[in-house]
């Protein structure tokens, strides 16, 4: 019958406007294009992944995709129990023949964003607002700072976190307070990697008439003229292509990396920000991008830092 795809979303849920939304988008595009059967579920807690993945496998789904690194162990276990099924996971590396790991080189993007911010900043001070303090967000902040320093070694980079529990992803008022305090301290551009809390950062930008930078999806439209750019992480592409290949019978296991080179990571330019992002900056950014792709610039990676 139909080709059946099961999507196990992270705790953030389908409409987190971040990588869950993006993954769902991608799967939906594939559904429209290929006429597959698509079913998604949202996990309630970290222990729920395994039963949900298993339930999909038992119900004869052909491809099961886990969204988010938190599902790593669960995918590893369930994939071993159902070797004839196909699995995919976003943001984590699982070494099994029937699992495709879709990982993103966020640090490359964050480096580029840091460079763009440093080029645009007039005050010589830029900021970063992270959601929960976790390695992934550290990966962003570390590369962001390095990218900025590449442009302007004297630049001041201030990194703040909304919180240390998962509520940090859902606290726009606090994201806004953090951003306001950064803007008040003379910072004129803030990169927000904080889930829904990032919306608070954008609100602050709106009030203070300063710039902010979006993440994951293209968020330029949310505050036209104030979002300098967004760091794109094409989870949708990764999911859609995986579904497509799997349906066509070309599924392969192993690790698939998405970076600047294959446009899995990028920065966005559209009608909402082309006026505020000058040609010269875009040009310079594209140069840096090329250098990273060519390996001339080695971007520091928090994951590799021991």
């Amino acid at each position: 019958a139909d080709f059946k795809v099961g999507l196990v979303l992270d705790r953030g849920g389908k409409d987190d406007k971040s990588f869950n939304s993006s993954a769902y988008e991608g799967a939906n595009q594939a559904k429209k294009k290929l006429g597959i059967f698509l079913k998604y579920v949202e996990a309630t807690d970290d222990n729920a992944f395994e039963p949900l993945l298993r339930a999909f496998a038992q119900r004869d789904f052909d491809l099961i995709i886990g969204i988010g690194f938190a599902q790593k162990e669960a995918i590893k276990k369930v994939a071993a129990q159902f070797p004839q099924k196909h699995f995919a996971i976003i943001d984590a590396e699982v070494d099994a023949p029937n699992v495709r790991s879709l990982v993103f080189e966020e640090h490359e993007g964050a480096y580029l964003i840091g460079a763009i911010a440093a080029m645009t900043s007039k005050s010589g001070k830029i900021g970063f607002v992270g959601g929960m303090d976790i390695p992934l967000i550290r990966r962003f902040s570390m590369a962001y700072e390095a990218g900025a320093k590449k442009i302007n070694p004297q630049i001041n980079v201030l990194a703040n976190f909304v919180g240390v529990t998962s509520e940090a992803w859902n606290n726009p008022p606090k994201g806004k307070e953090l951003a306001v305090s950064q803007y008040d301290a003379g910072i004129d551009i803030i990169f927000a990697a904080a889930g829904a809390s990032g919306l608070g950062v954008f609100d602050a930008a709106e009030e203070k008439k300063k710039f902010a930078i979006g993440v994951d999806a293209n968020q330029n439209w949310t505050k036209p003229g104030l979002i300098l750019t967004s760091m794109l992480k094409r989870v949708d592409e990764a999911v859609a292509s995986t579904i497509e290949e799997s349906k066509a019978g070309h599924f392969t296991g192993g690790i698939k990396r998405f970076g600047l080179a294959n446009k899995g990571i990028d920065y966005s330019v559209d009608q909402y920000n082309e006026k505020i992002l000058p040609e010269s900056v875009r040009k310079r950014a594209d140069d840096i991008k090329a250098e990273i792709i060519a390996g001339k610039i080695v971007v520091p990676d928090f994951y590799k830092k021991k």
Partner: protein
Amino acid sequence: MKRLLQPILAVALGLALGLAITWFAGENPWHVLKILGHGAFGSGYDFGMTLFYATPLIFTGLSVAIAFHAGLFNIGAEGQLTLGALAAAAVGALWPGIPWPLGPMLAGVTAICAGTLWGAIPGWLRARHGSHEVINTIMLNFVAAGLASYVTLYLLKNPDSQNPETRPIGTGYLIHQFEIFGGAPVSAALPLAILATILVWVLLWRTALGFEIRAVGQNESAARAAGIDTARIRIIALSLAGGLAGMVGIGEVLGNAGKFRMGFSPDYGFLGIAVALLGQNRPAGIVAAALLFGALHKGTADLDLETEHVTRELSLVLQALIILSVSAEGLWSWMKKRGQT
């Protein structure tokens, strides 16, 4: 008889209310009910997951109840269990070489001690400084989360994972997982929870200390007049409560994840309050209430998967309605009055 019938009827009523909502959302309630039952008890694995969720709730339920008997309100089980789990994982990660029976024992005791400490602090503050345990336990929950975050990111970071979690513990620390549940992580923590339940019952109703705890909770001045050192009893009760909550860490770290994961608990500590009060603060009642909550948690997760319209949000609504109607003491007499007229 009435004490048994009443909660059962109440669960039925809450379920009916919840099903009415799913019907409103466009599902066949009968179908939903079947999925719920099947999701919670349908197979060894499903039942295993129910038991897996129920186990920590037994610990936190007991924790809240024991404090409650001493007239204290422990909102801090969440923080206590966080520290308990963190401590167990720390021991297992720092000395991974310790062999089997010794490892779990050492880590288990450490988990209990960490929880106990986290309970003793508000107990001591209440007894000696008179500051309200409700505030202090809420505050300590946040502090525990901060400490856990620090430890997992700076001290015991797992280099192989992006998750905020600690390094894996040594294999000698892992406790037995029961195979009959088809892979569900039901570990030796379940019998431990049952044992803890029995011990709490013995403590509260068969020992002098338990009597003193209940006396302080009932009437502090009478207890004092009878010579009971009420300050000491309060500290002991909250310490015991903390220790019980800390035992959640044993199941999670030694019996399930093999490490400490930030945010592993879907609010076990808060649900423990509802579990304790639904179980009327009695050990057997707590086990029953924990099972109910475990079954609901597992059953409703399957609803999301099996139905078109029921999402995990609606599952929360359903659980809330069941808890509400089970707690409604007056519903019973109201129904009786209706029946008479």
